[in-house]
């Protein structure tokens, strides 16, 4: 278990095992489960009424701003993990702390601004508000 690669190989093996599990389960189902498809069964379930207009109906997607925020923040989290390792270093510790503080602060300003501008309130009005630009 010394070489660094074996760990990953084990993970590979585990993955395979998972796949095997899934396949085995499906096989067992194929053996045990009956199969008598009928149109009634195969139609989309909408609480009993007949399905209206295909399944991928245009639903207004309110979460886009959250998606943005996530992209911004989660990627900034990328820096936290390397930071974890250098923080104890004597000549980098304090400096890196300050830098990270600045970094997080900047991101927070962004969050603050977004919150202040109502991006986090549960409405899409912020997204497509009527704009009265004088046009040029």
């Amino acid at each position, binding site marked *: 278990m010394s070489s660094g*690669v074996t760990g990953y190989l084990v993970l590979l093996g585990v993955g395979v095992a998972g796949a095997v599990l899934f396949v085995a389960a499906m096989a067992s189902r194929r053996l045990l489960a009956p199969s008598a498809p009928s149109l009634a069964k195969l139609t989309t379930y909408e609480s009993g009424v007949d399905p209206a207009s295909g399944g991928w109906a245009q639903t207004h997607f309110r979460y*886009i701003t959250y*998606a*943005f925020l996530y*992209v*911004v923040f*989660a*990627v*900034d989290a*990328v*820096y936290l993990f*390397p930071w974890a390792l250098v923080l104890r270093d004597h000549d980098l510790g304090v400096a890196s702390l300050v830098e990270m503080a600045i970094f997080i602060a900047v991101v927070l300003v962004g969050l603050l601004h977004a919150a202040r501008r109502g991006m986090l309130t549960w409405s899409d009005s912020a*997204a*497509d508000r009527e704009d009265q630009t004088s046009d040029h």
Partner: protein
Amino acid sequence: MIHAAPPMIVVGLLFGIGLYGVLARRNAVLVLIGVELMLAAAGLLFVTVGSLTSDAMRAGQVMTIFVITIAAAEIAVALGVILAVFRARGNVDMSQPGESE
């Protein structure tokens, strides 16, 4: 240590696929995905070279993180623009020329 060849091959594949996506697809989102693939290729190349060369500053790895970050920023802007385009046009097809005021 891991041998250099396999990652390089992956780099080539990723970049090629990404480039293909950029050139072949007209849907902005798919182009974006293609771009991300190219960026991933670049990042992988960085980290591979970084792990091969003994650099005191770990430049390769750091660069990879930078690339990831910038890519994320790009996605944020790109999604915003694409959303706006979709609102304005109802599709995100780039092949149709925009009427320019």
